[in-house]
């Protein structure tokens, strides 16, 4: 089963695991991206995420289709938080289940890489004395 969702609140790793697990799958790989308390030596107080929600969810579906084609498993969960993310809490969770570990691990790495390249979501770092919108590489995603 696939689960793709933007969540305005804490993410639940168990929900992602439940969505992908099954008796014919011997491996579940997960990735959690968590809010870090520093960037380039500067203390970060919290993160704030904004998403173009409708397109982000389309992007998650596309990543799911790519994972299904490349790694032969439809069992992918993507949860991404929006709004304020306190330090230490997860901003994104990916879970992939597959019959064997190699596909599960490779698919999990692929999915988070593609999410970071293509999902229309932006992160703002909030410091004691201001805030900055982080912007990824200028490479134009295919389309």
């Amino acid at each position, binding site marked *: 089963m696939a689960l793709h969702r933007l969540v305005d609140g804490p993410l639940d790793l168990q929900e992602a695991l439940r969505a992908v697990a099954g008796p014919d799958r011997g491996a579940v790989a997960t990735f959690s*991206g968590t809010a870090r308390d520093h960037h380039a030596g500067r203390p970060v107080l919290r993160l704030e995420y904004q998403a173009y929600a409708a397109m982000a969810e389309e992007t998650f579906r596309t990543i799911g289709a790519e994972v299904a084609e490349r790694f032969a498993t439809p069992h992918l969960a993507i949860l991404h938080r929006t709004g304020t993310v306190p330090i230490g809490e997860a901003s994104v969770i990916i879970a992939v289940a597959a019959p064997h570990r190699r596909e599960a691990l490779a698919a999990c790495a692929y999915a988070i890489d593609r999410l970071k390249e293509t*999902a229309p979501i932006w992160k703002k770092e909030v410091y004691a004395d201001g805030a900055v919108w982080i912007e*990824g590489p200028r490479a134009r995603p295919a*389309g």
Partner: protein
Amino acid sequence: MKITVMLFARYREAAGRPALEVEAPEGATLQGIWEQVRTAVPALADERRPLFACDRAYARPERVVTGGEEIAAFPPVSGG
């Protein structure tokens, strides 16, 4: 034709609003529409090459808009 351009992240903050409506001629491209946004919003004047989405998919700047599409312009993404 009237075209609504959705803005995100730094662009939204610079414009002080989530979307902007501009009047575009028939045959206008995304880049052409963006030039009108830059003219209307001085805070975006330096943003020459945004990313564009048309109907929730990435689109090239030379894409011709026919009206009725969902148009968005935004800086490079940084989710995850």
